């Protein structure tokens, strides 16, 4: 690849790539996202590649290993164009048929089609799948168009044209005006207006400025940024470059989780390719703009989601936050003005430049514009990455896209926004995905993690889980967070182990209030949210633990017993064979029994019983 020295050379390259690609009309898009990879998609891709070659289709059919398509639960996924044919749960053994029957003959393989569990109907194309129907994929849909390791794919799909456009004829101040007008707000958790951040950084004194992309997605239960960065790294980089040009930065950092090896690898490859083409370095596209990007790996500390802690970590130091009397847009990385946005925020920028702020602002609500990617997980049928217009009701996400309850166990709540967010009961499901609305009811959009819980999820246990997480992740610098969370966890542990009193609930609320008002950084300030929201909406569950010494969901070990349902047990002996404690007895074909004194409640019998005969009460 030779260096591109002008806008015309970039345009020429795009035309040439498109012309070269015209002859190949059939494309097999195989999802290589994290979910599908865990389901062996690499083997599927290799098998299809081999099959294409054996059937003489090298150079005639395009096989593209793409980033995440979203529907992880059904992976490995394949989409074949033209025709939008959608196959799920594909295995390497299906490769011959897929190539011979669908690619060559254009016939659909019935058994690989998706069957809607609600209607029982098969979806013949991807767009017919209910999971995708209610979505508005603006960012995720781009994942299908590119191989994350091929800059040619990105350029052929129109990539870097927004950058060329701003460098050519949009003044930095006008870019910021456009971003402000679009109403884009930070997708990482805070929801701060992006345009305002940029403008404050631009106005901050100093010649040396930085832009940072936060790809250290530390929220448990969230993988939106992974989906975007691993699927389309150039989109994120183009957004960063537009931001850098707007604020006057010459250097950028991608702070990425080391737990996401593919994100690290793909962003490194992307940066190398850009340097080769002169899209990074001095005088980009022959203009006065010079910019470079460094990939900086995170150390797996949740507190580094806090801007000042993240910047300390990029500097190679311990990730402790500092008081933000002066904001990072003025005093940030190496004490220079710095814009920090997360992956999804940066990824939204090129399209806003391309289509205009009015286009972006046409989606969403009054205060929350555009689309939001949500990680829909937990006790629900269809899990995966979901992108909806802001303002979409939670109900639509959980039931229409998510497909509702698993095994008929009623859905009880959804936890939105990770450890800083809160749990909302089903009665609040008509609320929209909106920064301000969710904040008012004690939750938050956060980075977009949406964990669904059903009647078998204990809300006290969930609160305890988050407290334990935050206690572990607290950097220990300020007392309210370090000791406050500790004490709150002690109380909740008492409750889940049957030692709780009603008086402790008041103390818990008091502590929560103190911690949120006095902690130094966002981690501490929002730490009580999971406790406060569960106390607010699920107080009865707390009371059941305290008054009746019962865990209604059957989760808290100290308050439950395992037993066998005589009506369902057929005496197959599977539980007996696997019980390590030898707590289960019974003759073959006779109802078995569990000796509660020996039972360790390890859950093996329950997972091995095929007849759902193990009861936990």
């Amino acid at each position, binding site marked *: 690849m030779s260096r591109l020295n002008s806008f015309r050379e970039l345009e020429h390259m795009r035309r040439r790539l498109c012309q070269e690609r015209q002859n190949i009309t059939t494309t097999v898009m195989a999802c290589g996202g*994290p*979910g599908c*990879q*865990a*389901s062996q998609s690499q083997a599927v891709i290799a098998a299809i590649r081999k099959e294409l070659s054996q059937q003489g289709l090298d150079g005639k059919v395009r096989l593209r290993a793409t980033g995440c398509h979203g529907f*992880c*639960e059904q*992976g490995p996924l394949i989409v074949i164009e033209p025709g939008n044919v959608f196959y799920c749960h594909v295995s390497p053994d299906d490769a011959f048929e897929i190539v011979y029957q669908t690619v060559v003959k254009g016939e659909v393989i019935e058994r690989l089609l998706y069957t809607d569990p609600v209607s029982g109907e098969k979806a013949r194309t991807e767009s017919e799948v209910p999971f995708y129907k209610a979505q508005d994929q603006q960012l995720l849909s781009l994942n299908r168009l590119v191989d994350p390791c091929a800059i040619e794919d990105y350029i052929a799909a129109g990539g870097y044209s927004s950058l060329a456009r701003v460098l050519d004829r949009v003044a930095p101040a006008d870019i910021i005006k456009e971003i402000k007008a679009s109403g884009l707000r930070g997708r990482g958790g805070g929801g701060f207006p992006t345009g305002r951040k940029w403008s404050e950084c631009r106005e901050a004194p100093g010649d040396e400025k930085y832009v940072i992309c936060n790809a250290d*997605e*530390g929220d*448990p*239960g*969230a*993988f939106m940024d*992974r989906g975007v960065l691993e699927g389309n790294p150039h989109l994120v980089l183009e957004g960063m470059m537009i931001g850098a040009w707007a604020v006057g930065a010459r250097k950028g950092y991608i702070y990425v*989780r*080391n*737990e996401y090896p593919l994100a690290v690898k793909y962003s490194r490859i992307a940066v190398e390719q850009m340097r080769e083409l002169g899209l990074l370095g001095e005088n980009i596209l022959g203009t006065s703009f010079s910019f470079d990007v460094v990939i*900086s*790996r*995170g*150390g*797996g*500390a*949740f507190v580094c989601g806090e801007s000042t802690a993240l910047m300390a*970590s*990029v*500097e*190679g*130091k*311990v*990730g402790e936050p500092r008081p933000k009397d002066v904001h990072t847009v003025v005093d940030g990385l190496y004490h220079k003005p710095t814009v920090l946005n997360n992956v999804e925020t940066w990824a939204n920028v090129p399209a806003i430049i391309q289509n205009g702020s009015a286009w972006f602002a046409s989606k969403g609500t009054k205060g929350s514009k555009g689309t939001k990617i949500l*990680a829909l*997980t*937990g*006790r629900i049928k269809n*899990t995966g*990455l979901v992108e909806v217009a802001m303002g979409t009701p939670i109900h639509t996400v959980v039931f229409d896209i998510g497909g509702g309850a698993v095994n008929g166990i009623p859905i009880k709540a959804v*936890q939105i926004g*990770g450890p800083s967010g809160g749990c909302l009961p089903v009665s609040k499901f008509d609320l929209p995905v909106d920064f301000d609305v969710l904040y008012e009811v004690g939750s938050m959009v956060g980075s977009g*993690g949406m*964990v*669904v*819980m059903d009647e078998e*999820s204990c809300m006290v246990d*969930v609160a305890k*889980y*988050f407290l334990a*997480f935050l206690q572990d*992740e607290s*950097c220990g610098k300020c007392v309210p967070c370090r000791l406050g969370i500790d004490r709150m966890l002690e109380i909740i542990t008492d409750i889940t182990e049957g030692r709780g009193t009603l008086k402790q609930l008041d103390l818990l609320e008091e502590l929560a209030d103190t911690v949120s008002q006095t902690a130094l950084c966002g981690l501490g300030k929002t730490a009580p949210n999971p406790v406060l929201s569960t106390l607010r909406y699920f107080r009865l569950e707390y009371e059941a633990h305290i008054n009746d010494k019962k865990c209604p969901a059957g989760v808290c070990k100290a308050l439950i017993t395992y037993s066998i349902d005589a009506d369902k047990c057929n005496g197959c002996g599977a539980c007996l064979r*696997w019980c*390590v404690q030898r707590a289960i007895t019974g003759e073959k074909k006779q109802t078995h029994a569990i000796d509660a004194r020996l039972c*360790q409640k*390890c*859950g*093996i019998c*329950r*997972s*091995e019983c095929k007849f759902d005969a193990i009861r936990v009460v």
Partner: protein
Amino acid sequence: MPSQTLEQILDGRRSQPNQLIEVLHDVQENYGYISEEAMQAVSQGLGVPLMEVCRVASFYKAFKLKPCGRNHLIMCMGTACHVRGARLLLEQAASQFGVNPGEVTPDGLFSVEHVNCLGTCALGPIVRENGAYHHHMTPGKLRKLIESLRRQGTEDRQNVQAK
């Protein structure tokens, strides 16, 4: 064998304290953990006090200060995995190994650690075994996995002894 020596890792980064975390990542990738000797070399190479190297290495969860077992299991404790019963899996592994998370079994065969999120939430609970992902895990499936790893470990050892 590490593919890069400490010297090679430090090459081009000497006297650059801001490279500390990157260097520690590379040390761990090559050696499996960060030893005291490595910390001393890094401290000298980058010009960062040993105490600061130690502080950074112990602050971040990503860094291991002790070697892992031959089979290293990583249990995801993310929210999505948690509501699908991940805690039972961690307890299962710890009781089967007879050691706490972060420790190595006396035969050196196993170690287990828990992480906050592996980012494969849709398929939870997730267990990563020597780099391979096992999704939708149950206590029963985990028990079988560990037993098959143990059998293989014992066979390998017998083969080595036979040779």
